[in-house]
């Protein structure tokens, strides 16, 4: 096998003086729980997203990881303005898009596009590939005037590695990986600046997954895209992300760059999550320390007081019940020039290496 793996030219860690292209401040989404048929009354709320802050910079990939139900997909939908926020702001170049509607929203939406998880259900089976990829131009005719559309779609097919002659085929004639390429081509059609990808490779076979991940990397370099990459697979997220945020029950519990999160995690949840990921190396079986969490994630309708992770945490003390830890550099690491000094929402943060290092 002569093809050798080459180093991706990754952008150096984010320069602090750069303006974020997307800023999320105090994002909250509560879904009401109602009772009664005739007279609906609200009896509570599922706190799907409960105070999330982060920045996304131009050309970078921010990975969001977490288990099912942690609110990561809701964050994606809020960024797209597909759900109305309960509170908080989504600032696109300084402008709060949650307040926009009509024409102004349409303009912003052009620049933020989404790639969905399941390429089997997110493509209309009755439309040809050309119609699917070209549909965004119906809404934003300024991007490609009518006469140019066919050419534009063919170019997009070429960019994502599909034969432009397939323009008149239907989705069922393609494999899963090819369908995801169609989904990506549709996301690229309007030449957006930001792509929000919600589990884009989870439904694909391993050998095809690598093709799609590589394609996304290549497109990012080519079009200077910013990615919000949402996934539950920590290995893929490490592979593709510059920075990673770990979510638990509607909050980000730890955020930092690749090295900070994977080599120097300080939040117990991140450590447990990383230690649970199976590593494809049978020799690591005995070298690894496994943190097996007890129980399941509590219901987001009734999250624990204080720190939300405390019910499953082996370090939990009384303070964790009373006082909610804030997402900031923990006091013990403050001012240190160490990768452990990054935002982590834990009263008892400490470094623990859980990813087995290669010998």
């Amino acid at each position, binding site marked *: *096998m*002569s*093809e050798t*793996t*080459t*180093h*991706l030219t*990754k952008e150096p860690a984010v320069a602090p003086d750069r303006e974020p292209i997307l800023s999320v401040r105090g994002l909250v989404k509560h879904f009401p729980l109602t009772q009664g048929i005739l007279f609906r009354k609200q009896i509570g709320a599922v706190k799907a997203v409960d105070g999330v802050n982060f920045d996304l910079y131009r050309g970078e990939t921010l990975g969001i990881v977490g*288990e*099912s139900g942690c609110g990561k997909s809701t964050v994606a939908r809020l960024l797209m303005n597909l759900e109305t926020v309960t509170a908080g702001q989504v600032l696109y170049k300084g402008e709060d898009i949650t307040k926009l509607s009509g024409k102004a929203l349409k303009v912003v939406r052009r620049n933020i596009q989404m790639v969905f998880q399941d390429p089997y259900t997110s493509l209309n089976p009755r439309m040809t590939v050309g119609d699917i990829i070209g549909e965004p131009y119906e809404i934003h005719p300024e991007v490609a005037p009518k006469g140019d559309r066919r050419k534009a779609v063919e170019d997009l097919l070429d960019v994502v590695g599909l034969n432009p002659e397939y323009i008149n085929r239907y989705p069922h004639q393609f*494999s899963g*990986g*090819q369908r995801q390429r169609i989904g990506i081509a549709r996301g690229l059609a309007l030449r957006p600046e930001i792509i929000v990808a919600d589990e884009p490779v989870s439904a694909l*076979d*391993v*050998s*095809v*997954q*690598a*093709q799609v*991940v*590589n394609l996304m*990397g290549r497109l990012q370099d080519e079009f200077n895209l910013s990615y919000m990459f949402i996934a*539950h697979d*920590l*290995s*893929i997220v*490490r*592979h*593709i*992300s510059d920075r990673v945020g770990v979510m638990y029950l509607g909050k980000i519990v730890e955020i930092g760059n*690749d090295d900070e999160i*994977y080599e120097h995690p300080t939040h117990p949840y991140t450590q*447990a*999550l*990383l*230690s*649970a*990921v*199976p*590593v*494809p*190396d*049978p*020799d*690591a*079986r005995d070298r690894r320390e*496994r943190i*097996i*969490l007890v*129980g*399941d994630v509590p219901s987001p309708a009734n999250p624990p007081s204080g720190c939300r992770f405390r019910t499953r945490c082996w370090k939990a003390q009384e303070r964790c019940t009373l006082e909610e830890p804030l997402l900031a550099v923990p006091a013990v690491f403050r001012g240190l020039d160490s990768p452990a000094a990054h935002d982590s929402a834990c009263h008892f943060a400490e470094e623990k290496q859980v*990813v*087995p*290092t*290669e010998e």
Partner: protein
Amino acid sequence: MTSLITQVEQDPPDPQGVLLDVRNLHVEFRTRDGVAKAVNGVDYTVSAGETLAVLGESGSGKSVTAQAIMGILDSPPGFVTQGEIVFQGQDLLTMGKEDRRRVRGERMAMIFQDALSSLNPVLSVGEQLGEMFTVHRGMSRKDAKVKAIELMERVRIPAAKQRVGDFPHQFSGGMRQRIMIAMAMALEPDLIIADEPTTALDVTVQAQVMELLAELQRELHMGLILITHDLGVVADVADKIAVMYAGRIVETSPVHEIYRKPAHPYTKGLLRSIPRLDQKGQELYAIKGLPPNLLHIPAGCAFNPRCPMAQDICRTDVPPLYEVSETRASACHFWTETIGE
């Protein structure tokens, strides 16, 4: 095509230990569009207390083989056309229906991927667990309920006594999978087939479930066939691996050797194409192309259109399973080159 497939003896010397011996199994699906050859001459063995991981992508035939072993193949359209499935010395394929039914559930059991759709939504979990004992052991419903609670405790479901009357939807995904495991364990079978048992679960829950499964297996000294596409899970629990591609086993090996030195280009490609938790972002190696359509499996080696090493012989001759060492085999004409690189 089948004449070229040689039987490889890869078993521990003790024939007493061999629990299941699948020999030259062929399964095809007769569909409207033609005959899909899902399994084309599979051989593997599992011994008591051993974990065999069957690794493959969708359409590789890994689940169909398991369904044929369990005798739950949808037929029609699926048919076993050739081969033997010898379980504890008896060929399951020539056995009568009644006898086979007795083997299934009692001596071999299966755990499915999606617990929610494998459990009956209108029966409480207690009734479903208890059914194992009323049907196979002729117990009264009252005794069966006691047994059901015991089982739930055994797979560590908290407050088993209170929850025995709950329905599947009232449990979380991890808990439901525990109930599936409890059901499979109920009659203490000798062989368990787990088809992607943790694929639908979150990593922290996956770790809990795999640990439980491994522990029960040790305790009961069962054979375990773990069907998965996850190379990480395999590395964690398997003793030996069979890699499947287009209905054939392309490589078999003890777990440590295969990760260090794969002897088939497909295995090698798979290992190189997965992103790793312990490695930073480099461009992933991607196996080019797509898995073959089972209606039109390529001539010669089925992997040849995607293989970086393919030569003329690969396009014409089906490679037999060459013996690589006493415990390893590879269906590649160029296994020496592959392993040597």
